[in-house]
């Protein structure tokens, strides 16, 4: 149903030109037949004029029985822009690896055109399909249609957030475990934790198939599962020579940049001292036809990355240096570990304390004790450099006399 253009947008119009696709064109195109998108244009132009946003929080909104998946949003200028007085986003759990059929996409579009702004993010930073802007009363109808079409909501608030992963074995030769399979399993295993916030704060999973970490899991997930191998890099010397012939300077571009300093190239064969390989991927990245990760593949599990607030940004840190991740997933030991971690975090974590911050506060050593893991040198970049050691046992004179 066509909607009449309501606003002049001289500033936004300037963002229609240029070589990069324009989000303004997208909003305008939606606005042609969507009143919400139309009002959004007006509001955004006003923000551009005034250099300030016009949104506010509000009471929690959502679908029945779920604590997450919807972000309630309201403009602070509801009289001026009534169509977006409510403008909640819905987070819809993407299929693992973000693969779609055209049919599935059209189904999503049909639902959203019927009940929302016609605007989306494909995808949000966590990985969800974002339906950008609808009214409270539309949430349930949308939800029903989504579930009927086989889709469900993703996470928000203090719950498990929508897990995401790289395309892994679906299209990548380096996947050391089945990222998509595991992501699907995790998402289903933790449906309750995903939909009903019960943690001190959010809890994100990201699965990358190899140390290239194409979903940035080391930086953006409370639990980062990163594929790796522990045997020798597979080498096809013939293909190495071909790369060299075609102009790759193996000494300069590979050996000298290898962080393990464990590669030698004699002009004919490459020699890798695998015992010092850091599994950084660089040599493999540069010669995909010649080198490949070893055959004994699995993953490292790291915990705790997050954005800066409150204690400063964190990267995830190693908790399990290597583990095989093969089916049946039900039998893997990591679920017990993860659930132990949650238990202690739920018990002793503070409100709005991410698990990474929690571990830093209680100390990694104590955390390991609590979750039942043995300390391993792989968990640290280096041992302590201060002598402030809490030795846990000491002799009492009484005992010895």
């Amino acid at each position, binding site marked *: 149903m066509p909607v009449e253009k309501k606003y002049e947008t001289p500033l936004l119009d300037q963002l229609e030109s240029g070589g990069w696709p324009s989000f303004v064109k997208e909003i305008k195109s939606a606005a042609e037949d969507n009143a919400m998108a139309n009002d959004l244009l007006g509001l955004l132009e006003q923000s551009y004029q005034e250099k300030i946003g016009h949104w506010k929080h509000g009471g929690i909104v959502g679908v029945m029985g779920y604590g997450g998946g919807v972000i309630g949003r309201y403009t602070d200028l509801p009289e001026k822009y009534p169509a977006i007085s409510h403008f909640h986003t819905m987070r819809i759990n993407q299929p693992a690896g973000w693969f779609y059929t055209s049919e599935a996409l059209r189904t999503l579009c049909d639902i959203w055109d019927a009940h929302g702004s016609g605007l989306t*993010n494909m995808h949000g930073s966590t990985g969800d399909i974002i339906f950008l802007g609808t009214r409270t009363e539309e949430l349930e109808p949308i939800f029903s249609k989504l579930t009927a079409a086989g889709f469900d909501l993703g996470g928000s608030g203090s719950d498990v957030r929508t897990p995401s992963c790289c395309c892994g074995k679906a299209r990548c030769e380096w996947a050391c475990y089945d990222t*998509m399979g595991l992501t699907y399993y995790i998402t289903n295993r933790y449906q309750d934790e995903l939909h009903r916030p019960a943690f001190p704060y959010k809890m994100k999973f990201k699965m990358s198939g190899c140390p290239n970490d194409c979903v940035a899991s080391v930086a953006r997930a409370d639990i980062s599962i990163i594929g790796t191998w522990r045997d020798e890099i597979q080498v096809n010397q013939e293909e190495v020579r071909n790369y060299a012939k075609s102009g790759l300077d193996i000494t300069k571009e590979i050996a000298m940049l290898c962080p393990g300093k464990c590669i030698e190239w004699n002009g004919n064969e490459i020699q890798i001292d695998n015992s010092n390989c850091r599994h950084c991927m660089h040599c493999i990245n540069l010669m995909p036809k010649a080198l490949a990760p070893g055959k004994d593949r699995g993953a490292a599990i790291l915990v705790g990355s997050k954005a800066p607030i409150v204690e400063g940004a964190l990267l995830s840190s190693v908790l399990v240096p290597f583990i095989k991740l093969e089916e049946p997933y039900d039998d893997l030991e990591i679920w017990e570990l993860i659930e132990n971690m949650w238990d202690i975090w739920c018990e002793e974590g503070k409100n709005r304390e991410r698990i990474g911050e929690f571990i830093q506060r209680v100390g990694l050593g104590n955390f390991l004790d609590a979750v039942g893991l043995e300390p391993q040198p792989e968990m640290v970049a280096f041992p302590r450099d201060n002598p402030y050691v809490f030795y846990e046992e000491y002799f009492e004179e009484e005992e010895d006399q």
Partner: protein
Amino acid sequence: MSDAQPKRLTDIGPPHYQLFLPPIIKENYGKWKYHEILKPGVMVHYSENNEKLYTVRAGSPRLISTKKIRKYAELADKYCDGFLRFTSRHNVEFLLTKEENIEPLIAELEALGHPVGGTGNAISSIVHTQGWVHCHSAATDASGIVKSVMDELLPYFKTIELPAKIRVALACCLNMCGAVHCSDIAILGIHRRPPRVDKESLPKICEIPNLIASCPTAAIRPSQYQGKPSVEIDEDKCMFCANCYTVCPALPLNNPLNDGVSIWVGGKVSNARHEPMFSKLAIPFLPNNPPRWPEVTSAVKHIVELWLKNAKKHERIGEWIERIGWPKFFRLADIPFQKEHIDDFKHAGLSYKRSVHLTYM
């Protein structure tokens, strides 16, 4: 906008990905052998049984209408038997088995205004957030800056000849939803003025103990207002993180005069060569200047081009700066070094230069 509602289902999880995989992937799942980048935005993956999967990647503004999605679907039907995907940086990827479909697909995508590129040693799309389009705590817009910067950097999207990959990200406030903290270049919206206390509404909508605990620098103190518990802000201690505002909407700190953008450089995520690194502060403040943020755009471009000119092959921005040292980066980039650059948070002392590994030229 209302329809007959089907039976209520919950906790069904996402659709199984296998429903959406093209046959060539189903058959070669886990059997890929190697890949080549044929040209910017076009890859081929070879499987163990020598099958070839072509991928055409196109840039996206991420904020897209259902109309655009339907258009993608149409192209997928036409060239890819209906199969496509999106990437972790929000680009769209068409999955082809017929080599002859590559060029017509590219032609249609380019005509649609979606450039093909972003693979290999190139810039890819800017991971970003909501900005003034949807978020209440944004200190700047997201989509507008991204559009302006990418218009400038487009040639570097359509190439595979840069020294290395370059990943730019934008977040509109310190919550850093774009997780910009490990990007080659990060564009970060910042507030620069302490929140105001809306004393009337505060007791109604906020829990005071949570609010006080939310402040990283203990700038929020309990106080009284009209006999009811309230808070006050010690302005000298506030560093504008907005965490209080996230916890309590009665402490707004959006402010047109003082909000703006900071630029951070040298982060990375992959383990390739160097371990992952955080981005570091390059430019403390640039003004919000919509619609095209010329100061931000040219600052980003300037840094990218400096890197292009000076980096050795396979050096990400952070690796390049690590080799030449930060003093030289500031000299080359002609960015004044200020007190703001010197860390004063928890581990500040560890950022002081504790050696004489210095450069002077």
